[in-house]
């Protein structure tokens, strides 16, 4: 076969590779890749000392702590309750099940600004929940706790939608086998079912975490935005921009990007592992 034919056979017989691939790469480069690279270029254009100074300033560290800490706590809560909801949806029948399944998608469908003002109103001292908790001295709005609660809303669907397909594919054979061998339901759950769910649940956890760290709209209203105390990392970037400190903003953005990509990598690994389990089930 001539070289052209050989290449064609490897690629596939349908036409349009050049056009589709070319347009895809061109578009991606123009809209996504080149713009993103400006962050790296601008941040790396700074001297190492000034980059380090901005990226690890007291204020920046406080912001990372808040964003990451709240996102972690929220993702942990979602890990537990998300798995519970997935369990309910897959294993049980009850009236309103369709509604619950639909409700899980709510945080995905609701724009972040709307969620933000709604959650703030809800948890402020005059809101339904805030007022209920006030006698106990618990303040949620304008505290890190508020940020975490908002991120619980935002990240909820990730764990549910991650665990659901695995649970659905699991089937009951293994559990029934364990039961015939005399295992109690508790033991069966922890020894037979849970290990199968771990990769998917973890993938959902990391997805929720990654989303929570970079979240802006849902938390900017409830956060309080006091530097060093309730200032989230994305807000810090915005403040730098407003002061025309482009390199400073880029520096913090770079730190966040590196973190996001590390989390993304972890997610990919976990999802791949979960898919492996799915195939072997």
């Amino acid at each position, binding site marked *: 076969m001539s070289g052209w034919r050989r290449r064609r056979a490897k690629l596939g017989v349908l036409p349009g590779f050049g056009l589709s691939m070319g347009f*895809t790469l061109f*578009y991606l480069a123009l*809209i996504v890749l080149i713009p993103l690279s400006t962050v790296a270029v601008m941040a790396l254009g700074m001297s190492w000392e000034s980059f380090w100074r901005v990226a690890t300033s007291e204020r920046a560290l406080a912001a990372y702590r808040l964003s990451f800490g709240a996102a972690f706590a929220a993702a942990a809560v979602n890990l537990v309750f998300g798995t519970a909801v997935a369990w309910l949806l897959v294993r049980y029948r009850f009236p309103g099940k369709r509604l619950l399944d639909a409700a899980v998608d*709510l945080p995905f*469908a609701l724009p*972040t600004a*709307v*969620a933000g003002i709604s959650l703030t109103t809800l948890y402020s001292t005059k809101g339904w929940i805030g007022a209920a908790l006030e006698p106990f001295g618990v303040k949620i709005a304008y505290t890190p706790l508020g940020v975490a609660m908002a991120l619980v809303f935002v990240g909820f669907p990730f764990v549910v939608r991650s665990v659901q397909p695995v649970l659905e594919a699991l089937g009951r054979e293994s559990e029934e086998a364990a039961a015939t061998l005399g295992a109690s339901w508790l033991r069966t759950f922890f020894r037979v079912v849970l290990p199968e769910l771990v990769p998917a649940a973890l993938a959902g956890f990391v997805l929720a975490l990654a989303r929570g760290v970079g*979240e802006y*709209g849902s938390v900017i209203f409830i956060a309080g935005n006091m530097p060093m105390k309730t200032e989230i990392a994305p807000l810090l970037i915005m403040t730098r921009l407003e002061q025309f400190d482009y390199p400073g903003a880029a520096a913090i953005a770079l730190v966040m990007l590196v973190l996001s990509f590390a989390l993304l990598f972890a997610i990919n690994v976990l999802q791949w592992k979960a898919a492996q389990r799915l195939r072997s089930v």
Partner: protein
Amino acid sequence: MQEPRWFRAVLGVVTALFVAVVLVLPLATVFEQAFRKGVGVYLDALTEPDAVAAIRLTLVTAAIVLPFQLAFGLAASWALTRFRFPGKRLLVSMIDLPFAVSPVIAGLVFVLLFGSRGWFGPWLEQHDIRIVFAMPGIVLATMFVTVPFVARELVPVMQSLGTGEEEAAATLGAKGWTLFWRITLPNIRWALFYGAVLCAARAMGEFGAVSVVSGHIRGETNTIPLHVEILYNDYDFTASFAVASLLTLIGLATMAVKRMMEWGEARYAGRGEPSSEVVR
């Protein structure tokens, strides 16, 4: 394994409480606050000039962004699912990049490029072109953020459809565009529709990225979400929630579309599943 009755009851109740508090109450709050002062005030908030300008800008932005993302989604899914080549995972990761990036960073990158101190800043000022703090910037930021939506809907569907039909048509003499229009498009029209719905909904609801790029100029560079923010920060809560209810209705509509598609897919099994991720 049979969990004891009491366990199931407890799990059910605890979960129901959690869902009610975390998911349902925020939704209810939107409408309760929006209609607090009656329907008259609600409608006033929506017909006020700045609100109308915000609605117009939002719709125009979505109308500009959508065709580009449709074209990209079709091209990317065709390239990914109809050919064999190394590096597909990398390409998919690149398409998913906007999901992984904080919306503020999505806006930041365009300020770094086109802002007054950005790469092209001086050149733009020389030629009196405004990108940042004007509509082009808003459109670009929205485009960045919505890149993955259509592609992510199309790829699984086209993957599961396989190349059989198109290849058969090719052996019968059909050329490129004919293949595409006559075979591929009809098969993927529902995935394409749903991808378009998700893309448009996200384009209209995007907040963080547009917030960075827009400059918040009332009546000019405010989209609906930004207008919601301005009203809220002005303590005009009722109006803020009234405008927010528009976006909420759009969000609920996308959820309804998804349900309808899943219902339809149960009847025509094998056309692929819609994803639920409108992320951010």
